[in-house]
């Protein structure tokens, strides 16, 4: 039997659960989840759940060449590196950043973020949002 990874990950997102894999040798978290560990090169990992809490460490505001009209329907957003509290670092899309506020917010990096889940064309996807108390 070939172990399924991608489908269970998206099923998890439907229930607002973020699934990752943990290396059985070095303990590094592999996210998005895959079979093997890309921190140490060991072949075996196992399922773990992530909290979805972390921080945004960089901020790129979208412009004509890299904007996504679908994102804009949800709200103002930026691209950036998200570091989750379990040690995962990924490039992601983060909501709550207007062009007007971007300069001020950039000077406040790192900013706390939390996961948000969005329905898109028959699947649930994962984005992040800057914590409301920062934006208040």
């Amino acid at each position, binding site marked *: 039997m070939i172990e399924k990874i*991608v489908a269970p*990950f998206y099923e998890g997102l439907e229930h607002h659960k973020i699934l990752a894999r943990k290396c059985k040798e070095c303990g590094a978290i592999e996210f*998005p989840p895959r079979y093997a560990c*890309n*921190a*140490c*090169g060991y072949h075996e990992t196992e399922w773990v759940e992530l909290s979805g809490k972390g921080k945004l460490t*960089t*901020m*790129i*505001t*979208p*412009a*004509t*060449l*890299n904007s*996504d009209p679908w*994102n804009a329907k949800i709200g103002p957003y930026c*691209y*950036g*590196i998200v570091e989750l509290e379990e040690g995962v*670092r*990924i*490039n*992601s*899309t983060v909501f709550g950043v207007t062009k007007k506020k971007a300069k001020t917010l950039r000077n406040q990096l790192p900013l706390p973020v939390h996961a948000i889940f969005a329905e*898109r064309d028959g*699947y649930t*996807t*994962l*984005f992040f949002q800057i914590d409301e108390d920062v934006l208040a």
Partner: protein
Amino acid sequence: MVSGRVGKYQRSVSIIGVGMVPFCDMADHPEMEGLTEGEFFGTAALNAMADAGLEPRDVEFFYHGNANPKFHNDAATPNMQVAQWFGMGGKGSAHHSEACCTGYVALQEAVLDVASGAHDIVLSGCAELACGLPIKGKPAHIRKRLLLEDLIPDLEAIMDRAYTRALGGGHIGQDDWIDLYRTTYGLTDEQVDEVLNTMSYHGRRAAVLNPMAMHRTPFEELAKEAGYDDPMEYLRSPFNPKTTQYLRVTGNATNADGAACVIVCPTEMAHKFRKKPIEVLGIGSSSLELMVPHNEMEITKEAARQVYEVTGLTPDDIDLLFVNDFVLASQLCAAEEVGYLPRGEGWKWMLEGRCAFDGDRPINPHGGRTSYGHAFGVSGMADIYEAVLQLRGEAGAIQVKNHPKTAMLRGFGGGQNCCIPILKAVD
């Protein structure tokens, strides 16, 4: 990421011939319009053979590279479809495709082949008609213009389909590294803009003098047409708007049609041929998917480490650097990462013009992707073509000062694949 290593070749390999078709948009050149992939690849291949003094019968095997043969050429077997154009019907060949890193991987394939002893004389080339699209049911000379709305959705193909496209992690690439640079060294947005515009300016100065380059109109002329006396003022103006947070129009590469080929053989045989041999001392390589933070920086660091380790060279040994800079800022960031410019100081060198083709630490003397043009899979091979001319001392009006002996090429493509060869002129 997991680091790798590369060992010494079983036998030394050198470049003995190079050939090219200039980068252009065929539709703007009546004498080029209607040419096909076979004619492009065939011309570059026969030019490389003539450069080496070879006939097609002398070449034992060839590699064919193209960034996306199905999209641009509606071909699943492009190597077989071009072989007879340059007299290699019946010989062995293979196709490979690694987005904009294709041209550098093309050199690696040929070098590994000859180094292994499998063949003595191998041709490796790339052809890309990146300004147009094939039309189903019509012969290859009938094409339609490629529009941005065709290209943008297709560019998604460089991103992982399981996760990156769906999770929105792949759109940071153009600005990521220069943003990190700005933050690390405390530059203002205005300083970054000035550095990038200066790089655009010097790249165009070189391209104007380079018969292989696509954009050959000086910025002075474009500025005058737009009502500016100073080309730098023009580059800062609304005539050159921002397309991303940092990059203006002139900071992005323009699609081009083009082809380029190289021929390699064992260095011990290389002196039999017409031109000064250029040895391939080693090639470092690394790749990381687009969702991994600072992936371009990380893979550049890793590939450079490998090639320095296997060659025993240091950055001080490198006389000339080429950087695949379809995102212009990569030229500066990669030059510092491979040690060619001092860390945190490179931006000042750029502003002083020291990295221009006629400066004391030249980078991309051919003009760089944003002025030379970007024929996707061919661009890396075009960089190799230009590096070979520089190392032979045959680069004409753009020949860099202090005749270079050793060149490094920071190959990069698909936003995630890095390949760094070091080339050296054989005495």
